[in-house]
Every structure is written in C-alpha cells, then in structure tokens.
C-alpha cells in the first residue's frame, strides 16, 4: 500500500483560517483537533496510571508481610476497588482511545475525526467522571470498597460515595460511547479513496471492532449500575430475593458488559502488536485477512461467554457446560493471532528496538495469561481457582504485560512521529528490561499463591503465603518505580532529541499512511485526501 501524496502538503495551504493551535489553556479546553485530543487522552491516561499504580502499591505494601501492617481493611478494600476502576476506565481504555485519536486519522488518510466537537466532549467528560470518582474517596463512610464489579448486596452498603461512583460510571460510559461512535464514523466515512476495508492497518481494524463492542455493552453497564442506584435509593428490588429479584441477576448483566470489556482493552493491543512485529521483522504481516477475521470472531464470542466469571454462583449444569465450551472456543481465533505473529517473524530480518521488545514481551506474557485463562475456563477446575490470587495473576498477566505493554510499545513506536524526535533508546531498553523483570516478579508468584488457596481482596493472610507475597511486593515496587523512567523518556523526547525521519523505522513501509506525513506530524494532515493505490 502506498500513498500518491507528496510530503510537505501541509505547506500547500497558505492562508486557511485559524489553522494553528490556539494559545494557552484554551487550546486544550476547546480543541477539536484529533492530535491535541489524542495527546490529552494519553496524558490523562498516564496520570491515572500513576494514580491507580500508587493504590496498587498501597495494596502490595499492606501485603508485604502477613498481619495488619499499614491500612485498615475498609481502606484496603477501597484501594482494590478504586485501583481497578481507575486502571480499567481511566488508564488502559483512555490510552487506547488516545492512540486511536492520534493514529486512526493518520493511518487512513482522514483530515480529522469525523465529529471533532464530540471528540472533545468525550475527553472532558472522562475528566468529569474521574473527578467524581476521586471525590468519592473523601466521602463519609469511605470510598467504594465492594470491588470494581460492584456486586450487590455488598455494594449497597457503600456510604455517601455510592451515588458519586455510580454517576462517575455513567459519565465515563457516555464518554466511551461517544468516543466509539466517533471512531466508527471516522473509519466508515473518512477513509482516503482507495483505502478499502481490507487495506486498513490492523490497529485501525481492531479499533473498529472494539468500538462496536463499546457501543453494544457500555449502555448495558449503565443500565446495571442504574438498577443498583434505584435498589439503594428508590426501593426497587432488582437484586433482592425478598422482592422476587436476584443478586445473581446483577452478575449476569455486569458480565454481559464485563467480558466484552476485557476485549475492549485487549483488541487495540492486538492491533498495535500487529503493526510493530511486521515493521521490525521487515516483512508483511503473515495472514492479514485471518487476523481481521480472528479479531471479529473474538468480538463475537465475547458476547456469549460472560458467565465463565461466575461458575460458582450455582448455575444450572447446562449453563456451565455452555459457557465452558464457548470460552474455550476463544482459544481458536486467539491462537490464530499468536501463530500469525510468530509466523510474521519467521525468517524475518529482526531487530530489537524498544517497540519490538515490548511487542515480543507481549507475545510471550500475554500468552501466559491466555493459558491461565484456559485453565479457569474449565468449570470444575475453576471451582478451585475462583476468587483466589490465581485469578488476580491471570488478569494482570493479560492486562499489564498484555494491554499495558502493548500501549508502551505503541508509544515507543509512534512517539517519534508525534514529537519529531528520536527518544533515548538506551534508556528505553532499560525501561523495558526493568519492567519485564519486575512485572514477572510481581505477578508470577501470584499463580502459586492462588493455587495454594490464597483468596483475593484480603488485607491479611495465613503465614504460609508470606514468602511469595514478599517477592510479589518487591516486584510491584520495582515495576512502579521503573515507570518513572518511562515518563522521563517521554518528556525528554518531547523537549528535543535527534531528528526523526518521516519514516522513522526502516521497516515501516507497508503499513498505514502515518509514515507518509512529516515527523512531527503537522497540526493538520490530509486536508486533501491522499489516494491509496
């Protein structure tokens, strides 16, 4: 795929109205520019990553030794709850939305996102949502502490934080839905001539499918938390057996949202890795079409597996069988992806720049998380794993060295395109190795703890779990501190450095149109649509 567009088109329009960014704070408050909004999302996500990370460190500090050490159990529960809400809705999702904002218009040759004002609204609504959530921490009765899944009846005991947390979810959901609509419309309506669907870069493809998932399930989540709200304040009994309702109903509705939600976090990561591995293998992606169909299959399957999160609630046997088998089916399209990434590297001319290192770590470590997922998909085995640290280890493997590593890979991959500078590769390598070693030190022992029976969401534990908890906590602090390096590298790169070429990476020739615009990408790109041959 190539663009017939010549470089330097930005200079082609001499006097268009108000074309530079506005000055000062108003630029960021009122911007409708996809690059500005992408940057806002990414910076917001980084701040939330450290906020949620600090909460994780409170958890790991408490768990460093058996016995009650630092915080009271209620606050510990608040930390587990809000850490998860922040990381899911405040860090991982906004990071991938930020990448989508920056890269989708550049990859498909669009002048901007299709609905630029709504794009700004999506971002600032997210800030409003997280302001409410953070505020809820300071309410009488403490912050939300029933776990991020907000299961009734426990969650109904939350104090004054309760409505704030619920409304935070409503606003974050509205933000996600509008963001998803924008992404779908941009991709379906603003592709450059010749950029057919099956020529689109995989990052764009995975985001298109992710956006459909978002629109389908965020409203369901909004409905679920609305029922919690009315159960708490207005006397409904959706989740109370006394009135004919059922607490398990909440779990069904929640996980109907929650399972697609985990793919909302990982599909864009799949897209990122599918961009990076070919570049540093200097080959085309192996099995492009299969990758697209596999992504779509995973998205479809994500709607019919939700009850594997609740095998122990006492579901009818037929339900357990169905959800067990449909869950295992996901291994097929996921396997297609893993094998295709591997086959892309086969006989490739590999180099190991930081984006490739993160992508490779993703490949190995995400797969470990996938395998532990398969173990838990087996309903009778899950009776043993359920609510133990094994589950914690599983989803952190797919989320941290999975989604988060892919996001870091994407930042290292596209940062020179955004800033026009190359970053400090040596430091980035340090960042990679420290992160990879510590993340395994952090999460791998949690498999052992879980298999030995340590329950999750507990501030104290039996002494036989002491050793591995200490190792895990050391890993946590190591991983957390290593991320300061990430910030330093980004800030340093934004401020200056060796000039990046338009192409940035020598292998980045057969992918999206982002490599046809100058580095740094001008404020406005593709005002005249390029033609893709």
């Amino acid at each position, binding site marked *: 795929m190539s663009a017939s567009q010549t470089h330097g088109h930005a200079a082609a329009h001499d006097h268009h109205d108000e074309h530079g960014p506005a000055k000062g704070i108003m630029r960021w408050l009122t911007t409708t520019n996809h690059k500005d909004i992408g940057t806002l999302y990414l910076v917001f996500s980084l701040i939330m990553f450290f906020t949620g990370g600090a909460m994780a460190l409170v958890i790991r500090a408490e768990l460093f030794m058996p016995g009650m050490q630092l915080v009271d159990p209620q606050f510990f529960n608040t930390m587990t709850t809000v850490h998860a809400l922040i990381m899911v809705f405040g860090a991982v999702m906004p990071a991938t939305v930020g990448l989508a904002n920056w890269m989708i218009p550049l990859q498909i040759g669009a002048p901007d996102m299709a609905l630029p*004002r709504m794009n700004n609204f999506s971002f600032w609504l997210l800030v409003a949502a997280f302001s409410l959530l953070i*505020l809820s921490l300071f309410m009488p009765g403490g912050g939300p502490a029933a776990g991020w899944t907000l299961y009734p009846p426990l969650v109904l005991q939350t104090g004054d934080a309760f409505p704030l947390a619920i409304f935070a979810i409503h606003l974050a959901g509205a933000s996600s839905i509008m963001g998803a609509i924008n992404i779908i419309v941009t991709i379906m309506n603003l592709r450059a001539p010749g950029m057919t669907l099956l020529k689109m870069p995989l990052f764009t493809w995975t985001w298109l499918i992710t956006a459909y998932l978002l629109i389908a399930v965020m409203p369901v989540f909004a409905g679920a938390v609305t*029922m919690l709200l009315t159960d708490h304040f207005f*006397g409904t*009994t959706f989740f109370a057996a006394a*009135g004919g309702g*059922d607490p398990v109903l909440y779990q069904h509705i929640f996980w109907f949202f929650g399972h697609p939600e985990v793919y909302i976090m990982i599909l864009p990561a799949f897209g990122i890795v599918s961009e990076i591995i070919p570049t540093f293998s200097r080959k085309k992606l192996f099995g492009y079409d299969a990758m697209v169909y596999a992504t779509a299959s995973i998205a479809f399957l994500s709607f019919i597996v939700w009850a594997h999160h609740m095998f122990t609630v006492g579901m009818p046997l037929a339900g357990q069988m169905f959800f067990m088998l449909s869950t295992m089916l996901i291994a097929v399209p996921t396997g297609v992806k893993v094998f295709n990434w591997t086959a892309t590297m086969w006989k490739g001319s590999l180099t190991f720049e930081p984006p490739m290192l993160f992508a490779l770590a993703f490949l190995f470590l995400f797969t470990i998380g996938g395998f532990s997922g398969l173990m838990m998909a087996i309903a009778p085995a899950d009776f043993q794993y359920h609510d133990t640290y094994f589950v914690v280890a599983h989803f952190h493997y797919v989320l941290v060295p999975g989604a988060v590593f892919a996001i870091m890979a994407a930042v290292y991959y596209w940062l020179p395109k955004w800033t026009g500078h190359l970053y400090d590769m040596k430091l980035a390598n340090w960042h990679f190795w420290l992160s990879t070693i510590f993340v395994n030190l952090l999460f791998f022992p949690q498999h052992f703890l879980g298999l030995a029976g340590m329950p999750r969401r507990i501030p104290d534990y039996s002494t036989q779990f002491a050793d591995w908890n200490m190792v895990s906590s050391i890993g946590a602090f190591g991983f957390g501190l290593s991320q300061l390096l990430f910030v330093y590298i980004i800030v340093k790169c934004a401020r200056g450095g060796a000039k990046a070429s338009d192409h940035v990476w020598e292998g980045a020739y057969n992918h999206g149109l982002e490599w046809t615009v100058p580095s740094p990408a001008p404020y406005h790109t593709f005002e005249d649509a390029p033609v893709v041959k």
Partner: protein
Amino acid sequence: MAHAQTAHDAGKYYIPHGSKWPIVGAVSLFVMMLGAAALLNGVNVAPFIFWAGFASVLFMFYGWFGTVIGESQAGMYNAGVDKSFRMGMMWFIFSEVMFFAAFFGALYYARNLSVPWLGGEGAKYLSNLFLWQDFEPTWPTNGPAAVGGAFETIPAFGLPAINTAILLTSGVTITIAHHALQAGNRGLLKIFLGLTFLLGFFFVYLQATEYAHAYHELNLTLGSGIYGSTFFMLTGFHGLHVTIGAIMLVVIWLRVMKGHFTPKHHFAFEAVAWYWHFVDVVWLGLFIFVYWL
C-alpha cells in the same frame, strides 16, 4: 452563503476549529451529577447545585445545537458531513437499544428464571426449601416477602392499548410529514409534524395519569417488588425518551416554521424521525412483554 469569517470550501469535509460547548457541557454535567449525588445523600444545598448544573446543560444544548444549525444553514456541511451525522445518530440509537436491552433482560430473567427458582423449580430449589417455603411463583409478583404490599396491575387493553394506538398514529403522521417535506409541501409538513409532537405529549400525559392511578388506586409502585421495579423502570425510561423525542420534534417543528430544511437536505428531521420510530418500537416491546403477556 458562507462568509469571510468561515471561509470554508464546500467541497471539503468541514472540520470545526475549537469550540467552547464541549467543555461547557462537561463542566455542566459534572456539576449536575455532583448535585444529584448530593441530593441522594441528603445534602442541604444539593437542589441548588443540581438545578444549576441542569440549567447549564440546557444552555450547552441550546448553544451547541444553535452553532451546528447555523453552520448547516450556512451550507458548510457537504454530503460527507451529512453521512457522518447519519451514522452517528444510527449508532447512538443502537446504544439506546442496548440500554433498554439491559432492563428487558432483567425482566426476562426475573420472569423465567429467578422467580421460578425462588418457587423451588430447577437446580436452585434450596432457597425455596430453606427460606421461602410458602412462596408460589406467579407473575406478577412482589416476591416472597410481598415487598410493598398487595397491588393490582394495569390491564393491557385499557389505557396502554390507547397509548399504543397514539404512538403508532404518531409514527404515521411523522411519515406523512416526511413525505410532505420531500415533496416540498410545507403546509402539510407543518400540520403533520405539529400533530406528531402533540400526539407525543398526549402519550406522556396519559402515562402520567396511568402512573397516578397505579400509585393511588392500585398500590403499584416502584417499590412493589420485582414487578414494580421492572414495570416502572422500563416504562419510566421509555416515558423519558418519549418526552425527549417530543421536545426534539418541537425543535424541528420550530425550525420548519423558520423555513429550515429542503427536500434534499434535512438530516435533523430524519434523525428525529428515526429516534421517534425507536421509542415507538420500544413501546411495542413494552406493550407486549410488560403489559400484555
């Protein structure tokens, strides 16, 4: 058409440069939701915060839509922008469908699974055996503890059937209005569009009388167990959507009166019409699954 201030090439996809409305909207919604939370927590000043936020949300809608309408009238939106708006509206309606799906799902689950289980059917007979031995699973029900006390339900073929007729008629009138718009018959357009929102508000009025009847005479309230919960949440959210849809109809009717829309260029009209058909279809689902069966 487009003047110097917005020297815009009509052949190009229009990209606005900076807008204050989204940030106004985000701040307003923050204040409104903060006020709503404070209201629920019984804080004194809460109503003031909530209504201040609500008023600024209305101000944002007025300003934002006003800007967009102005740009549309100035001819700044080409076919590409029009298509984006259409797709955006379509997916917005889809998200609304999924919101209602959550509540319909709850209704289905309660009627077909959890209530029979509480009555001792299937794999979950233990809760019946140990907790609610005397519970007879019937529908409607307010559960084994008879939450909210005995209540009666609203028969489908009374007011709800009349409401069904009203909404279906309004679906016809808006279609006649649309055909009139396309044929350039503005007189007919004004009458039938006006008729549509009048029918819409009449529907809302009848729903309100039905609610008053339910609360005062039938003892059917939001707190009447799972039946009351599903009944009022489903019909309540639907009524809210009809109200919003009727207000949208009024807005486009006022625009018609001002001479907006051409036979070929009338996205806002169609968007509102789609939305109206959507609330219509949801109502049919309600009529069948909530009132009738």
